[in-house]
């Protein structure tokens, strides 16, 4: 069973609906005791880096998620849920993320902010998550900040907005996507299906 972390970030239902459309059962988890019976975690996210981490701490999600990630168990972070896999963000100086990947987030410059709309990806590594997905495929993005990864080997795909930045990251069974697969039409559904079945 897939567990979707509810830490007050909203928009959990669209992920659940997309999974439901694919015939995948999922549960929205209000608190860490709901982790019982969960084999895969989705961490959605909107809002600011600092606010998200504060809510995660307040709702006692930090330790169980950190432990889950340390054990390398199946995980998908979406949008801000990907950014908080890294160490920090200039959006919220001094706030630490889960730090399972090295790097931090910085604000876009020179373009409209937020970036809102469909942008394409360039695949850097062929992995089962991206089966049936190609470079040049479009996904729906909404964000003000982008990740700068210190390690190239976690970058599975990049996207250009001003400069190129990581739009899909992966390390073992831990994945993050900067875009919203649940709002990215057929390609997004394909990626979610791949994640559930093959990752």
């Amino acid at each position, binding site marked *: 069973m897939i567990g979707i972390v509810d830490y007050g970030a909203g928009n959990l239902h669209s992920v659940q609906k*997309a999974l439901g459309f694919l015939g995948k059962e999922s549960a929205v988890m209000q608190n860490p005791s709901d982790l019982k019976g969960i084999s895969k975690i989705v961490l959605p996210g909107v809002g600011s880096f600092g606010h998200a981490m504060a809510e995660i701490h307040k709702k006692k999600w930090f330790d169980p998620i950190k432990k889950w990630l340390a054990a390398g168990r199946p995980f998908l972070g979406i949008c801000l849920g990907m950014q908080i896999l890294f160490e920090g963000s200039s959006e919220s100086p001094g706030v630490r993320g889960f730090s399972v990947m090295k790097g931090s987030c910085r604000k876009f410059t020179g373009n409209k902010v937020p970036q809102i709309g469909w942008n394409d990806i360039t695949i850097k590594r062929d992995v089962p998550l991206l089966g049936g997905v190609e470079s040049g495929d479009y996904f729906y993005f909404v964000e003000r900040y982008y990740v700068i990864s210190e390690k190239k080997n976690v970058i599975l795909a990049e996207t250009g907005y001003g400069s190129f930045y990581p739009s899909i990251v992966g390390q073992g069974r831990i994945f993050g996507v900067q875009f919203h697969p649940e709002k990215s039409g057929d390609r997004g559904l394909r990626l979610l299906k791949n994640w559930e079945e093959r990752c």
Partner: protein
Amino acid sequence: MLTTRVIPCLDVEDGRVVKGTQFKQIRDAGDPAELAALYNSQGADEVIFLDIGATYRSRKTMVDVVEKVSRLVFIPLTVGGGIRSIEDMRTLLNAGADKVSVCSAALNDPSLLSKGAEIFGSQCIVLSVDAKRTGKSWNCYVKGGREDTGVDAIDWAMRGERLGAGEILLNSIDKDGTQSGYDLELTRIVSEKLTIPVIASGGAGTLDQVVDAVRIGKADAVLMASLLHYRTYSVGEIKQYLREKGVRVR
């Protein structure tokens, strides 16, 4: 690279689409879910539902519409029309809307934008500006373009951005329904003064006018109603034309 979005707008009353019901390829063209699915299959980048009913019953039905569409169509869904409070926003977002668009309620109470952005994130909050030319500038109108508020539209859009709107839906009252082209001057000024995306609306009648909205008007997205609803063009045809003219589309 980021692409220009093509966004169909559907007018809904009591849960039924009231314009653009002339589609032969679908069973029930008055059903918002069927039309949204059709536009999705044609390559629409988002869909906007506008509740023009403005009655309690119509608004309540819209929640059911959103609930249904969001189970079938997996592209962003914006809902506008008659949203007056944080509670209205919450109800629609919980039902499955990705964004809510506010117009007159935000003019009455600008804190609706900042509170909405704080609670739901600014990516959820679209400020809809109905602008009508008044001499050398544009004023914000309400009540379907019938009432002049005296508020300068460009100033209001800029204030909306500061308050926390994530996007501006810029509708030209002068152009709306005329099919004589978008208000390029207005669109360009707002797009260049703001850092958030601007969706151009009102006046699309030909494909070249859509290209102009992007090229000259600097619009980040183009909204259209009549051009699609009366089957003049499909979303796919519009995008193909934009592509031929060098506009990046999905």
